[in-house]
């Protein structure tokens, strides 16, 4: 996995630079543990049910005696609590802590001046280029497709989400989709490194290069080039509409999927729906230096605010992933096992899984199940 660069063409040097990301995946990335061995993590509750889910995480962590301290920030575009200063504070906290857990910052549809939302700007400033969603069927909860195990890797900083739009003449709007070789190579390398590290067999690139010949064609070319460096991993590609059709008919043919921004959004949500919805799938975003943990399908779920019905599973599982990233293996297993045990028992389930429990009841059940 470590490339010995023999002073070849320029892109080799670029490729070997991104090896550090994979190296960082296997090494502890957080700052050195303090004297009292507590890790500091930035917390961004976001909008909608975010604050409720964060409360669940904090409660579980307190009950489990997890040595993590949260630095909370409240940044919200819809509640008029967003400003440049807040963003700067948040960024400096991130630079110190390197790890964050966050909810979704909702983007209002009306824009005042800037087309890029705060969520997008945060991603760009931290260069969180890779979004990884691990789609696993929950034991004990059956859906139309059981025993799923997919990884969806999505490029998160360019593509259709460029926020470059303009009205050429009244009534005619152009929106630019940008694909670059550097970023396509970077995400392809990330995908193959991830697959190698986790022992996966196949990486499938998802694209629409038959229509967007130059744009997605470039993405596909980069994936193919990177694939040659990993002879042990099978490489395939599939067109996005066929991919969606195959996912609902036979999702077992896929292993790791890598794709540009918009298709990633679609496939993340589709795959989350296959195993139980937005409430059960955790996700994380990586840059070369930072790791941000969140839910897989990112929705503020505003209609559930205050009704105590949101499912904390996704956020709790993501928090467990965060603990593993901080090298707190014992606590990570404790939290994720407790969540899985509650779901498997089936007695306490929130509405989206067909049960009648409130978020609080579910959180209490998880706390009760923490390894005694």
């Amino acid at each position, binding site marked *: 996995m470590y490339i010995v660069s023999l002073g070849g063409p320029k892109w080799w040097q670029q490729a070997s630079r991104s090896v550090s990301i994979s190296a960082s995946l296997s090494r502890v990335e957080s700052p050195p543990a303090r004297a009292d061995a507590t890790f500091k993590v930035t917390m961004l509750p976001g909008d909608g049910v975010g604050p409720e889910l964060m409360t669940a995480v904090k409660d579980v962590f307190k009950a489990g005696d997890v040595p993590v301290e949260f630095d909370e920030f409240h940044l919200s575009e819809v509640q008029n609590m967003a400003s440049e200063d807040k963003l700067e504070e948040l960024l400096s906290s991130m630079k110190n802590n390197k790890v964050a857990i966050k909810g979704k910052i909702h983007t209002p549809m009306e824009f005042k001046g800037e087309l890029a*939302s705060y969520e997008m700007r945060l991603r760009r400033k931290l260069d969180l280029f890779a979004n990884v969603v691990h789609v696993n069927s929950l034991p004990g909860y059956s859906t139309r497709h059981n025993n799923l195990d997919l990884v969806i890797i999505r490029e998160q900083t360019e593509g259709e989400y460029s926020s470059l739009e303009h009205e050429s003449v009244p009534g005619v709007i152009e929106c*630019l989709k940008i694909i670059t070789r550097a970023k396509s190579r970077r995400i392809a390398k990330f995908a193959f490194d991830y697959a190698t590290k986790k022992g996966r067999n196949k990486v499938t690139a998802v694209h629409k290069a038959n229509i967007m010949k130059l*744009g997605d064609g470039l993405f596909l070319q980069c994936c193919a080039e990177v694939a040659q460096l990993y002879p042990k991993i099978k490489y395939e590609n599939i067109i*996005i*509409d066929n991919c969606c*059709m195959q996912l*609902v*008919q036979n999702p077992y043919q896929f292993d790791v999927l890598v794709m540009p921004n918009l298709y990633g959004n679609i496939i993340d949500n*589709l795959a989350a729906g296959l195993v139980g919805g937005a409430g059960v799938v955790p996700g994380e975003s990586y840059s070369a230096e930072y790791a941000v943990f969140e839910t897989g399908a990112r*929705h503020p779920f505003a209609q559930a605010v205050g009704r105590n019905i949101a499912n904390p599973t996704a956020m709790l599982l993501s928090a467990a992933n965060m603990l593993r990233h901080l090298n707190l293996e014992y606590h990570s297993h404790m939290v994720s096992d407790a969540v899985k045990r509650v779901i498997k028992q089936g007695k306490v389930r929130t509405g989206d899984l067909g049960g009648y429990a409130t978020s609080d009841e579910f959180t209490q059940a998880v706390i009760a199940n923490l390894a005694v």
Partner: protein
Amino acid sequence: MQQGEHVNLKESNSANISSIGEIPAMQTVTLIPGDGIGPEISSAVVKIFQAANAPVSWEERNVTAIKGPGGRWMIPPDAKESMDRSKIGLKGPLKTPIAAGHPSMNLLLRKTFDLYANVRPCISIEGYKTPYTDVDLVTIRENTEGEYSGIEHQIVDGVVQSIKLITENASRRIAEYAFEYARNNQRSSVTAVHKANIMRMSDGLFLRKCREVAESYKDIKFTEMYLDTVCLNMVQDPTQFDVLVMPNLYGDILSDLCAGLIGGLGVTPSGNIGANGVAIFESVHGTAPDIAGLDLANPTALLLSGVMMLRHMGLHDHAHKIQKACFDTIREKKVLTKDLGGNSKCSEFTADICRRVQDLD
């Protein structure tokens, strides 16, 4: 505020069907058999229509691209003339040449007749089991602009820019078509699918036009939903959706997603509506060259597209008869083609449907 002749076409065609008791006038339809399994499934459909006594007279045409004056590629003039006259077409699968120098045939047809709306009704087929039951929705996709404008360029080495185009006129046109379709087919709601939180100006314009058009159709419920939310909910509970209207790329993805819910492209009908009253109905699967000519093909997709065509022409009775016969055959499971899980030949499948249609009379 009626826009486009296609809306009035429904009324004018209904007028062709004279009062009850008289034989309805024969209507001409341009038939494009296509390549690969195209010819065999087209003849299967013609046979079934004959058995149902559908008042349709077929004009067969070929649409292989030819170079016209000025060096531009175009479809053969006799095909164009036939289509302009008959206004209705039924098309089989066309081969997409890799290096023939001309653009894909589907693209050429779309440009020639300004086929701006792609309509795909997705209804669960009773005899063909999939994990999703009770699907009954229609996806209406804007087919001329959006992400498929084909405008791309390499700015500097390694940086490519693709342009997504959204215009007010196209958005208004597709929204009006969607609401008219909902009204004519007794559907209760129309949902606009978009990503206006990310592409605030372009999808914002699309959404605004949909909202404006919704004002004139107060009898139809109008909702809007983000694309990712639609995908999330579609695979959990597809029964909550009715008519979906959306720009080009989302439409492409969602219509294939919905086809997957009911069993794939082999059983999904599709229709393309043009600006001058032209409507071309087609099967969306490939040409299947490996089974061409072996009498193994499944004509269901083309047949259901033909049924859609009959409904568009106002011949609801015939449409209902043929659809019922087709679904009954599939439900019985005695004579099924290989892709539906059986062992029969295409001709046997066709004969069974013809028999049922005649029995239904």
